[in-house]
C-alpha cells in the first residue's frame, strides 16, 4: 500500500488532503452559489462606486453624503488608523509608566499599579469603552455651560473645554510665512541629532565629554523662536470662543466624544498589558548585569539607559508590537460608541444600506489582514535584526 511505503507516504497523505480540501471548498462554494441564486443575489463590487448617502461626523478627508461608498470606506480606514495610532502612543506611555512604577520600591505606588493592571486586564475592553464613553457623555456638562458672556464654567486654562460632545482644543492657524518657521524647526531637530552624534563620536574618539542637555534645548528652540518673531508671528491659535454662537462652542478643534472615549479606553486597557510586558522585560535582565554595571562605576541612570534597557527592549518590543496589533483590531469596537471607523462605515452603514454582506465583510477582513500582516512582518524584521547580535 502506498501509505506503508515511506517513499510515497507523504505524497499520498497530501493527495488525500488535497482531494478532501477540494471537496470541502467545492461543497461550500456550491452552497454559496445555490443560496445566492435562490435569493437572486450575486457577488458584485459596483456598489462601491454608488452614492453613500449618509453623513460622517468626524472625517480626515473631504466627505459628504454625496460621496461614494468607497470614499466612505476610506474615511473609515483613516479614522481607524488615526485612533490606532493615537492609542498606540498613549498606551505605550501608560504602559511604560505603570510597568516601571510596578517595580518601584515605594509600597503604595507598587500596590496602586498592581491594582491598575489587574483591574484593567480582567475586565473586557468593551465594558471599559462603554464606561468611559458614559463618563464622557453623562458626567460632563453640555457645551452650553461654557457659552455666554458669563458662562457657568470657565475654559480650562482659557484654552480647553470639556463637554459631553467632545473636547475643544485650540487649533493652530497657519498664516503666510508659517512654512519658514516650520522648516526652521525641522532643520533644528536635524541639527540637534547631528550635534548629539558628534558629541558621542568625540567622546568615543578622544574621551572629551561635551554638554548635551542645554545645547539641545538651545538649538531646538532659539532659531525657531527667532524666526517666529522675524516673520511677524505667522502662527496663531484659534481658541474655542464662548461668545461666537448661542447654541454650541465655535472655534478651535473639536475632538468628538466617541474618538476620545475609544482612544482613552484602548490606551488605558492596552497600557495594562504593556505594563506587564515592560515589567517582565526589565525583570528578565539578570541582576548580575546591574551589579556588573555598578561595579564598573556607572550611575544608576546610566545603568538603566546603557545596560538594562537595551537588553530589556529585546524582550519587550516583540510583545509590544503585537499589543499595537491588538489595539488596531480592538479599534473595531469603536462602532459601539458611534465612532466612524472602517467597521462602522464599510461593515456597518454601507453593509446595511446596500445589503452587500459578503462583499463588505470580505473587504473589511482584507483591510485588517493587510494591517496585521504588515505589523507582523515588522515584528519578524525586528526579531531577525536582534538575532544577529546574539551569541
Amino acid at each position, binding site marked *: 500500500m502506498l*501509505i506503508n511505503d515511506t517513499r510515497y507516504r*507523504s505524497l499520498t*497523505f*497530501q493527495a488525500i*488532503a*488535497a482531494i478532501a*480540501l477540494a471537496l470541502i471548498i467545492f461543497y*461550500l462554494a456550491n*452552497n*454559496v452559489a*445555490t*443560496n*445566492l441564486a*435562490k435569493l437572486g443575489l450575486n457577488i458584485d463590487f459596483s456598489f462601491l462606486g454608488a452614492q453613500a448617502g449618509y453623513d460622517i461626523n468626524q472625517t480626515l478627508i473631504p466627505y459628504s453624503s454625496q460621496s461614494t461608498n468607497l470614499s466612505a470606506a476610506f474615511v473609515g480606514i483613516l479614522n481607524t488608523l488615526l485612533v490606532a495610532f493615537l492609542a498606540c502612543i498613549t498606551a505605550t506611555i501608560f504602559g511604560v509608566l505603570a510597568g516601571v*512604577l510596578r517595580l*518601584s*520600591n*515605594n*509600597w*503604595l*505606588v507598587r500596590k*496602586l499599579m498592581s491594582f491598575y493592571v*489587574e*483591574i484593567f*486586564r*480582567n*475586565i*473586557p*475592553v*468593551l*465594558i471599559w469603552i*462603554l*464606561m468611559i464613553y*458614559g463618563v464622557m457623555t*453623562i458626567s460632563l456638562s453640555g457645551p452650553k455651560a461654557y457659552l455666554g458672556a458669563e458662562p457657568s464654567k470657565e475654559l480650562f486654562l482659557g484654552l480647553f473645554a470639556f463637554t459631553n460632545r467632545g473636547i475643544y482644543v485650540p487649533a493652530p492657524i497657519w498664516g503666510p510665512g508659517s512654512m519658514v518657521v516650520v522648516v526652521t524647526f525641522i532643520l533644528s531637530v536635524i541639527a540637534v541629532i547631528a550635534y548629539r552624534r558628534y558629541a558621542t563620536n568625540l567622546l568615543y574618539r578622544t574621551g572629551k565629554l561635551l554638554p548635551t542637555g542645554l545645547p539641545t534645548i538651545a538649538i531646538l528652540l532659539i532659531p525657531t523662536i527667532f524666526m517666529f518673531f522675524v516673520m511677524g508671528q505667522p502662527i496663531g491659535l484659534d481658541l474655542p470662543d464662548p461668545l461666537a454662537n448661542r447654541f454650541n462652542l465655535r472655534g478651535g478643534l473639536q475632538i468628538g466624544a466617541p474618538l476620545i472615549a475609544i482612544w482613552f479606553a484602548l490606551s488605558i486597557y492596552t497600557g495594562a498589558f504593556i505594563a506587564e510586558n515592560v515589567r517582565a522585560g526589565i525583570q528578565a535582565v539578570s541582576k548580575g548585569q546591574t551589579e556588573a554595571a555598578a561595579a564598573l562605576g556607572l550611575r544608576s541612570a546610566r545603568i538603566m539607559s546603557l545596560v538594562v534597557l537595551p537588553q530589556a527592549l529585546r524582550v519587550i518590543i516583540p510583545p509590544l508590537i503585537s499589543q499595537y496589533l491588538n489595539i488596531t*483590531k*480592538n479599534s*473595531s*469596537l469603536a*462602532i*459601539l460608541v458611534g465612532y466612524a471607523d472602517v*467597521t462602522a462605515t464599510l*461593515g456597518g452603514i454601507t*453593509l446595511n444600506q446596500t445589503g452587500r*454582506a*459578503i462583499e463588505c*465583510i470580505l473587504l*473589511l*477582513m482584507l483591510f*485588517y*489582514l493587510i*494591517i*496585521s*500582516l504588515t505589523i*507582523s512582518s515588522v515584528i519578524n524584521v525586528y526579531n531577525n535584526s536582534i538575532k544577529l547580535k546574539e551569541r
Partner: protein
Amino acid sequence: MVDSTKSVAFVRTEDAPSLPPPSSAAGPVKWLRENLFATPANAILTVLSLIAIYLLLRDFLPWLLNGVWNSDSLAGCREVLQGATGGCFAVLTERWNQLLFGFTYPTDLYWRPTVAFALFFLAAAPVLFFDLPRKLLIFTALFPFIAYYLIWGGSIWTPILSLVGIIVGYIVYSRLVVSSFAAGFFGAILAAVIVWIVGGSFVPDGFAVEGSMRSVPSRDLGGFMLNMMLGVTCVSLSVPIGIALALGRQSSMPLIKFVCVIFIEFIRGVPLITLLFVASVMLAYFFPPEATVDLFLRVVIMITLFSAAYIAEVVRGGLAALPKGQYEAGDSLGLDYPQAMRLIILPQALKISIPGIVNIAVGLFKDTVLVSVISMFDLIGMIRGPIPASPDWNGVYWELFGFASVLFFICCYGISQYSQWLERRLATDHR
C-alpha cells in the same frame, strides 16, 4: 559592722535591659521610611498616590455605601436618596435574573442552568486539579450531554443517542488504534456517524416525548449564562482543533503546512468582531439551502475557529520549546508519527503551553461580550438593551456596568490566579 558588699559604690552584676530601637529604625515608622518616604522623589510619588486614592474614593465610596438596594424603579431610588449621592442597586436585586439568564429564558426553569452551572464545577475539577481521583473524568465526559439536556431541554433521546454514538466511536477507536492511528480515528468517526443515523431512525416518535423536559430554543438564552456557555464551549472545542493546527503547521508536508499557516494567519489577522459579522450575516450562505443553523451555533463555530488559531500558536510555541532530542528519541524507539506525538511530544509540549492556553481562555471569555454587537442578549446586551429600555429602569447605567465588571473580574482574576498556581505546580525543573 561594715558590709563588704556595700563598701563598693556600685557594681553591676547584669546587663542593663536593652533599650528599644529608636522609633525611626523599627516598627511602623521604619516601614514608612523605607517603603513610602525613602527619597524625596519617592515621597512625592506617595503623596500623589494618596491624592489619587482620595479622589477615587471620594466619588466612589458615597455612591457605593449610600446605595439603595430596595426599590421597584429608578424614580423610587431617587425618592429614597432625596438628592444625595448613591447608587441605585435595586436594579440588581430586581433584575438579577435577567442579568444572569437573559430576559426570555422561562422563569420557572432557572433551576436547570443553575444545576448545570453547579455540575460544571464538578466536571471541571478533575481537569483543573490533577490530584483528584481520575475516575471523576468519566463525569467530565458525561457533562456536555447533561448540560445540553438541562439547558435546552427537549427529548432526552437526543443527548443519549449522541452519547451512545461517541461511546461506540471510542470503543472502535481503542480496538483499531493498536494497528494504526489513522484507522482508529476515521473508524471511530464512521462508527459514531453510523450509530447516529441508525439510532435516529430507530428512536420512535413516542419516545421523543417520553422523558423530555420543556425545550428552550437557543434564542431564549441570554445574560451572563450565555457568556459562560460560549466561553466554556468554545475553549473546550478549540483546544483539540488548535493542537491539530499546531501539528499541521509543524508538518513536513508542504500542502498541510500551507493550509494551516493560511488559516491561522487569516484568523489571527482579523478582529473577532468581523468574524462575528460573518457568523450573523454571512455564514448562513455556506450551509445547504435547506439547513437552518441557529445563531448560537454559528457564533460558537466562529469563536471556536478564532480561539483555535490562537491556541495553535501557543501550542506551536510549546512544540518549538522541546529539545530536538525528544523527537529523535521517539524515532529511535521505532514509534510512528501519531505514537511519538501522543506518547512523547504532546504531553511535554502541552505542559509548557498550559499557562498560554489559560491566558487565551481568559481573553476569549472576555471577548464573548462582543456577541452583544450582533444583537445577542448576553450580559452586556442586557445592560445596553432591554433593562435600561424598560420604563422602570430607564437611565440606570453605572450600577449595571459595575455589576458586569465585578462578575468578569471575579471570573478572570480567579482563572489567572489558578494559572499562576498551575505554573508553579508544573515547574519540575530546578531553577
